[in-house]
């Protein structure tokens, strides 16, 4: 039983971890928390469906189409909304990102209808048993892809020019600007990167749950995972996601499935109130 919880929990957790990474990658560099990221997950999943159903694209092309458009969308948000607002109070930025999320959700509801759409699985959803555990290839694919994405993110941040510029801005934006790194263009990259992470999470999770305009509420789970992980630590975001997935699945088994979501939201509030620096983050001194 416990092993089974672990397996299902890690599947959900891998998706939460990707979304949490999306939040943290963006927040560390830009100080913005993007409240519309969950709805961008929905958008990207819909883009796959649109490419497949309306443009007759093969699966791989449809995914590429969705990822490219999602990245472009992220960059467009930075250029069109966040750059004009960069000196605005945080409250204004929060409301702007909320509005972006709401616009996406309502745009999808109006254009694609409120009913769920079928999304193709990466691998077959038919389960098989291995050593007493029920495994689902579709779920294993989710975990595998998530792992690959995380690995390549860390490699990119450490070894590429693209990633090292991002790390430099993380550490010290002024210093980065002095050595010739364009901070605004790094911000645009971060928005694109965060959008792609959300897009991958959205495409992975859409077949497992139902793809409807309201799928974006799953983004809150990503928040919870990011907060558990401290909101400024990338490995923390992954650990937070996996922990949340396992805790939620365990709650679903031992308490009740109806209470599952309530428990994870309560965990979020509790963590915000009692442990604002998370399990893996460091406390940041507040400037007056």
């Amino acid at each position, binding site marked *: 039983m416990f092993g089974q919880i672990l397996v299902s929990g890690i599947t959900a957790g891998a998706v939460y971890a990707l979304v949490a990474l999306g939040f943290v990658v963006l927040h560390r560099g830009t100080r913005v928390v993007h*409240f519309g990221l969950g709805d961008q997950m929905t958008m990207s999943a819909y883009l796959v469906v649109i490419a497949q159903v309306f443009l007759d694209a093969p699966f791989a092309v449809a995914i590429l189409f969705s990822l490219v458009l999602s990245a472009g969308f992220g960059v467009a948000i930075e250029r069109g*909304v966040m750059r004009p607002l960069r000196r605005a*109070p945080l409250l204004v930025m*929060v409301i702007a990102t909320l*509005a972006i999320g*709401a616009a996406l959700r309502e*745009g999808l509801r109006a254009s694609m209808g409120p009913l769920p759409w079928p999304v193709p699985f990466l691998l077959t959803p038919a389960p098989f048993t291995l050593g007493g555990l029920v495994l689902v290839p579709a779920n294993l694919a989710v975990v595998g892809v998530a792992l690959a994405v995380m690995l390549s993110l860390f490699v990119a941040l450490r070894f590429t020019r693209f990633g090292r510029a991002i790390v430099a801005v993380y550490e010290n934006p002024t210093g980065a600007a002095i050595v010739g790194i364009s901070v605004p263009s790094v911000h645009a990259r971060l928005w694109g990167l965060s959008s792609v992470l959300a897009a991958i999470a959205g495409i992975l999770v859409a077949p497992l749950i139902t793809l409807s305009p309201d799928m974006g*509420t799953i983004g809150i789970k990503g928040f919870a995972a990011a907060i558990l992980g401290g909101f400024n630590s990338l490995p923390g975001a992954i650990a937070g996601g996996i922990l949340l997935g396992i805790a939620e699945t365990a709650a679903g088994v031992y308490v009740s499935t109806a209470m599952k979501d309530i428990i994870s939201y309560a965990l979020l*509030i509790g963590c915000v109130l009692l442990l604002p620096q998370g399990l893996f983050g460091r406390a940041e001194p507040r400037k007056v």
Partner: protein
Amino acid sequence: MIARLLIFAAAAALVALPFFAPSHIVFLVAMIGSTSVMVAGLTIVVGFTGQISIAQASFAAIGAYGTAQLATMAGLPHWIGLPAIALVAAVVGYLFGLLSLRVADHYLALATMALCAIVQLLLIHLEDWTGGAVGLAVPPLAVGTRMLTRPTELYAVIMPCVALTVWFLHALSTSRLGRAFAALRMSEVAAAAIGIPVLHYKSLAFALSAFFGAFGGGLFALQTTYLDPAQFGILESVRLIAIAVIGGVLNPFGPLIGSAVFVLLPEAMGALGRYMSLVFSLLLLLFVVVSPQGIAGLPARLRARR
């Protein structure tokens, strides 16, 4: 002077409205009224005090479900039940405010968002208390043995509450409390340094927002006569924020103006109705990008008006 005349003219028109307008219009104007009361709470917490709250729909739900169930289960008439549940909501809001001192900015936004999600899930899962996903019928407002169900009758109940709300916002903005809220908005640290008890005042702002949210929610329940948990989610909270922002968060008439736009525009758009939510989200975005000063740090505009 001109502004004052305009206000009197508008008030006179609102008093005269039920005598000549068709009942459909009267219903819509009363709907603007009840929405504006819910939004007034946000004007206090977001506009005056500069704290983000994505839980306003939850407070509206407490008011709506509370007054309906107090009437159904306890037999309490609405004119007692509605103010009572609004006070209960205010206490909940105060306690939530106490907790929120520990967090600020986007952490507060996350916490209120999670609260909103929890309340909506509770509305769906506590079926014995809330009717679950199916919804809940609201018993009509009774005065003595007479049931007030016609639009004009509800209008006569709701609009005085709206007038009181507008008056309260105006009085608050020029009061000692309102100035303390403004100080919090501009700088918490500076406010604490000049002796404003930050924790208490922030909590008071949340208490007031919860009170108006619940009161407006209760009035809304009387009008719609049927409650559905889908009406009280995060999206509704965002919609209420949009109304507050577009109406103007430092003007006592802001909630009324915003609600008028949000209630009347879908009526005017007719067949384009399903794009309305999209249009409003984009409007909200446009407002914060083009005039971000419309939300926070408005001392300059406030001074210019004096």
